[in-house]
């Protein structure tokens, strides 16, 4: 900063007037030059930022659902790209009828209805969330200019998805005609391999069926809803995973000393919580409480955990936060607060109360435990390519954070393994592969006895390659209904 000052002080004793004038002019000009260099730099960063916005954030911004109007303008200039799986199966593509009119077709029909979605009638699923990717063409400049000049439509980019037809088919078949959802992920990368919601719909018939879906007649028809990402359910006993984490955090290594004698119910402040079918589990450790999914013992465990610790655990596990997936997702809700009373707390720690979760969220939770506590960002799109296969952008797995320590993860893995070997999911105990999981039967509504059937798991236990979450609405216990669904998906996964 001092260089012009120096100049100011050391006025060279000019020998001739011309030289002196020149020096004087230089001295005078220096601050003006500094000001202008400053502004030139500012302007270059401005131009740089404009380029940055377009290159790095452009597609994201342009893809906003609020930008639909401009997206429709793009659709007039570009043939919408296809959605293709890693192994080359086309899930959505644009074809031309005999009159040369474009139409969108979904070769797998109902199988990918919710996750792939549809592009017309406002759009849904990946078709909506990747609208801009499909409507932008990154083919060669030369080709684009050429097509532009010939007034031909450019060909939009293809979206390559992590979805796997075989697993999707297995999950869909396993859910059958039940209402419910299943999400399959790769715990190490966060890639979503399958996402099924039932009842489903045929995306090919959306334009014809639209009047029906929007009519009063369809008021109770929830088949357009993607239960996997938007369905909010009480978690039931799978929440005990989080209660356990809270307890481990508070009691470190002393969890082995935990003992409880279950008589089939527990009463605190005149509030009684029963075990499933009032079953008395007898003498329990923390591990067997978890494996047997004993409500009484878990109320005992959970009420010993400070509410703030539990809140922190829920916060780490993305409760009340937007799931960072480019698809319409609901936030899971945890209503725990300092003001939570004993009754609510007793219900919350066993997964009842005011807690609501999405199946996707529970799959992410199971995956994070399987992945030794490292939660990966879930994703459906592995890359975007031009129509002739040049990669436009690829998405690499991204850590969301370490939500539990490695030692906590080890303990939970051991507990969840026990659920399969000795607890509520023994029907999955096979030599073919090792599974660790947690069942849940979530009571809903005010009526006693009606419950949703939950199961979350990952496999193989030591080096998980797959994490699953399954819910069957109004089915009954997790062991009886959700576990067999997961088993069919696992069988398909291992049956290579």
């Amino acid at each position: 900063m001092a260089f012009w000052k120096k100049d100011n002080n050391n006025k060279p004793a000019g020998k001739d007037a011309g030289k002196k004038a020149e020096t004087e002019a230089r001295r005078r000009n220096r601050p003006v030059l500094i000001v202008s260099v400053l502004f030139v730099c500012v302007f270059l960063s401005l131009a740089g930022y404009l380029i940055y916005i377009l290159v790095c954030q452009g597609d994201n911004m342009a893809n906003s659902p609020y930008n639909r109007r401009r997206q429709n303008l793009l659709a007039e200039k570009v043939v919408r790209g296809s959605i293709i799986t890693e192994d080359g199966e086309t899930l959505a593509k644009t074809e031309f009828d005999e009159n040369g009119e474009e139409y969108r077709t979904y070769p797998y029909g109902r199988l990918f209805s919710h996750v792939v979605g549809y592009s017309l009638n406002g759009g849904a699923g990946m078709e909506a969330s990747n609208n801009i990717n499909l409507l932008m063409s990154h083919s060669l400049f030369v080709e684009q200019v050429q097509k532009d000049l010939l007034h031909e439509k450019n060909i939009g980019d293809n979206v390559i998805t992590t979805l796997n037809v075989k697993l999707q088919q297995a999950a869909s078949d396993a859910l059958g005609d039940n209402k419910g959802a299943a999400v399959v992920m790769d715990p190490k990368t966060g890639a979503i391999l399958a996402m099924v919601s039932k009842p489903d719909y045929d995306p090919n018939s959306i334009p014809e069926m639209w009047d029906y879906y929007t009519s009063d007649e369809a008021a109770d028809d929830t088949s357009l809803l993607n239960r996997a990402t938007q369905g909010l359910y009480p978690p039931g006993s799978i929440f005990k995973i989080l209660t356990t984490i809270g307890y481990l955090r508070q009691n470190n290594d002393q969890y082995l000393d935990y003992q409880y004698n279950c008589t089939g119910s527990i009463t605190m402040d005149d509030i009684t919580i029963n075990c499933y079918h009032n079953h008395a589990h007898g003498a329990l450790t923390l591990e067997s409480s978890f494996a047997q999914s004993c409500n009484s013992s878990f109320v005992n465990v959970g009420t010993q955990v400070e509410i703030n610790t539990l809140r922190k655990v829920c916060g780490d596990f993305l409760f009340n936060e937007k799931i960072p997936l480019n698809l319409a997702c609901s936030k899971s809700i945890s209503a725990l607060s300092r003001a939570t009373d004993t009754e609510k707390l007793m219900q919350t720690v066993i997964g009842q109360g005011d807690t609501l979760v999405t199946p996707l969220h529970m799959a992410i939770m199971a995956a994070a435990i399987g992945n030794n506590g490292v939660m990966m960002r879930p994703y459906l799109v592995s890359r975007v390519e031009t129509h002739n296969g040049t990669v436009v952008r690829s998405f690499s797995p991204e850590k969301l954070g370490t939500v539990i320590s490695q030692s906590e993860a080890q303990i939970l893995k051991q507990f969840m393994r026990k659920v399969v070997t000795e607890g509520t999911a023994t029907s999955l105990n096979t030599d073919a592969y090792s599974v660790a999981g947690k069942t849940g039967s979530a009571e809903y509504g005010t009526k006693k006895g009606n419950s949703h059937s939950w199961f979350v798991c990952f496999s193989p236990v030591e080096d998980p390659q797959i994490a699953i979450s399954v819910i069957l609405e109004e089915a009954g216990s997790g062991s009886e209904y959700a576990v067999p669904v997961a088993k069919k998906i696992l069988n398909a996964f291992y049956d290579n």
Partner: protein
Amino acid sequence: MLEIITSVSKYAILLTAALYTFLGFYVFSKKTEEERSGLYAKQIVLLFLFHLISYAVMFCREQSLVILIFYAAQVALLAGTLIAYRAFYPRCSRLLVNNMCFLLSIGFVILYRLESERCIKQFIIAAAGIVLSFVVPVIIRKWTFLKKLTWVYLSVGLGLLIIVTVLGATTFGSKISFTVGGVTLAPNEFIKILFVFFVAGMLSAEDLQFPRIALATVLAAAHVLVLVVARDLGSALIYFVVYMAMLFVATRKAGYVAAGLGFFSAAAVAAYYLFSHVRVRVQTWTTPFDTLKNDTSQLSQSLFAITTGGWFGMGLFEGAPNTIPVAMKDFVFSAICEEMGVLFALCLVLVCLSCFLMFINISLKLTDPFYRLASVGLSVTYIFQVFLTIGGDIKFIPLTGVPLPLVSYGGSSVLSSLIMFAIIQGLYILKQDE
């Protein structure tokens, strides 16, 4: 056919603008005026080509007689300006005249596309402005006493500013203007020039001592304060930066600038807590998409426009720039990005920079301290205003709501910009004649 013309024209428009811009910088490498002259002539050809192609596209779309007549009128105005400057002021900076006409023509194109009636209005004001500003170089030459009117600039400028603040209607949470007989005036656009002259008068004194600097600073701060009270923070910022730059050039002391910046930071924090509309703008800036549903969705619409348009733009009439609020004024840059493309917009940024470099080039040549300082002040006024509007539109900085000189719709803005260009031309001619 129409679409083919639109898509061909998209690239042709970009090509003319890119070549024009390139020449605008290339001239700086040529030393003699003869060498430069050929380049200027090429620029003029490109300018008219750009204008012709753009209007051809719009004519294909509208096929009305009005647009033909209007196009002819614009050609007459632009050609008239170029010829008149050459004829009457042969020693003027031809680069500046070219750039001025190019920026005006970009404005005429995008404004016509957005709202043809207001574009015609803008054209009339610009035509009047060019005629008016044409005498400015003569005035500068004849009226040397202008250098001595420091206190007149102060009293008229600050006085007007206060009156406008008291009487003026508040539009869009800031920006002061008032309407006289159907014409909305933003006196602030002209007061900027008076302010620069006042500061130049104060700081170009031969024996510049601290008391005089302090007095100048207090009076400059008074301007800024009135603008802050009027909630026109964009202008307040321009005045502040212009004063800082002029103070630095006059005193060559970085300490003053450091003190000024320190004071500014404190003031900015205070403004954030004092004014709700400042908070809103900062919030919109940090999270533009969360506030989509409020009236500050301008920024998200602007970003949609820029990003959907992409490098080459959607083509004239192929985008939806009218969904951007105040697209004709503060967000004209985003409208240009959407339909003419980011590459074209980058050319526009560089043309503005080329104007600034020419301004500075002229300032460096001036030896009279008053003229020199005034010229630096006007240069900074111009470039900083361009920075504020473009930076705000692309989310580089929070929005301040200032128009893009010579391009945005707004009579006062275009008039004052023309006068600014003319003043600098006048100073240049004066120097050339010496």
